[in-house]
């Protein structure tokens, strides 16, 4: 049974139409497995081979992959939530109530988006400290660390802009507290705050700006930098394998 399914999969993947789309056929040889990665526009960000040592759980705790996983969940649930959301006052709050009482699985959708967002912030920090304590930021990986810091900031901004969207008391006052900090910047503080909020207080303009930032600008920035981040792993010689075993591991 299993063998016939395998045969079927192989037949599909050797099919002329399939090959015209995916170029590489079945993965029954290392050449084919290499082509599978190398001839795919998304997968070719990654290297064809990886050091076995870097796949051990203790090496990375898979924190980078998990962070990316939360990002995928957030994109999917975020797009679904956009179908039920109007960035206007007070309709935004009414949409939260609709998610709660009208939309099928609306509460679950919002819960998953919310908890995944918290998880992503936590995982980004955890990933950063793990990378630091392994010394994986050292030459030649300096710039990928810098891109990682940019991604940390993008993640915080994504989470912060998303915080306002439910337009409840929690959202409104959290963003008020945060945007008041922006006005403490010397010389141009109030101008920065005005630019961020589209006004002098958190109002309908601020909601629209945060919506555009949260759903368009920041996700695009995140995708761009994630792509560079992954590609640099390959260019910088793969995931940092740790101290060389012959050095005695005395550090």
């Amino acid at each position, binding site marked *: 049974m299993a063998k016939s399914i395998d045969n079927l999969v192989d037949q599909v993947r050797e099919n002329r139409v399939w090959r015209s789309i995916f170029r590489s056929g079945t993965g029954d040889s290392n050449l084919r*497995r290499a082509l599978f990665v190398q001839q795919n526009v998304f997968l070719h960000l990654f290297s*064809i081979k990886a050091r076995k040592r870097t796949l051990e759980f203790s090496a990375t705790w898979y924190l980078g992959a998990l962070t990316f*996983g939360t990002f995928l969940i957030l994109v999917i649930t975020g797009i679904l939530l956009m179908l039920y959301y109007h960035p206007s006052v007070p309709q935004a709050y009414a949409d939260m109530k609709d998610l709660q009482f009208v939309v099928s699985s609306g509460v679950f959708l919002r819960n998953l988006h919310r908890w995944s967002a918290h998880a992503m912030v936590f995982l980004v*920090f955890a990933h950063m*400290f793990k990378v630091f304590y392994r010394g994986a930021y*050292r030459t030649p990986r300096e710039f990928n660390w810098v891109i990682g810091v940019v991604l940390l900031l993008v993640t915080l901004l994504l989470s912060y802009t998303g915080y306002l969207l439910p337009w409840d008391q929690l959202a409104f*006052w959290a963003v008020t507290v945060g945007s008041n900090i922006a006005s*403490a910047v010397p010389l141009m503080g109030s101008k920065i705050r005005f630019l961020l909020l589209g006004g002098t207080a958190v109002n309908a303009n601020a909601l629209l700006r945060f919506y555009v930032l949260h759903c368009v600008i920041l996700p695009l920035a995140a995708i761009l930098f994630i792509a560079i981040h992954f590609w640099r792993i390959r260019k910088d010689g793969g995931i940092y394998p740790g101290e*060389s075993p012959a050095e005695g591991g005395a*550090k």
Partner: protein
Amino acid sequence: MSNPKDFVAVVDSDARRTPRRIAFITKRTSPQVRVKDEDRVMTYPEVFFRAAVAIQVLAIALVVTSLLWDAPLEGLADPMHTPNPAKAPWYFLGLQELLHYFPPVVAGVLIPGLVVMALIIIPYFNINVEAEGLWLRDKTRRLRIFGIVVVVFCIFLAVFDVWVALVPTVIVAAFMFLAAQTDPQAAQGFRHWLVRKPLSFWIMTWFLFELIVLTAIGTFFRGPGWSWVLPWRG
């Protein structure tokens, strides 16, 4: 020199690939130096499948969490009615805790700005690239420098009444000076591990500790008027 064996000799004997050669790799050499070629696996399927399994486990955990706990939703936003306390999202509560002690331009602009700058320059800054234990060389001078730095910083925190930041600083400094009092040759276990930690480890650990303590205090232990509360007496 405290450590007489500052290098290791490596012989790569794979004659098919390389002629026999001997490399001397000192402990301060860049990690780019590869001691020997090692086992590699194909990214597809090995790496992708492992990553997929990890992501699936996480997704299951998040789905279960979402089924059990609802995301908070309070009343409609009301600019006329300020909740007490008005709290930022949890990852900013460490900063909000500092806002309680310092003027906004310090706690809200200067400190986060310095943190981001410090994070960016980490890989370009020599103390982070050096992997040698802090106290293994030049110990007397370094003890004097770091002793003064820690004392001055603690006085600064005490003047501003920032006890919540002072306590983690003192604890990390205590471990740092415990490492200084440790004989690198004789020490065993934890102290053997401690004495080999470079300066970058101490700074980052201090930062991590402060981050956790301040965020936890802002999240769980602050109530109306930013006064102390106990989370279990809600």
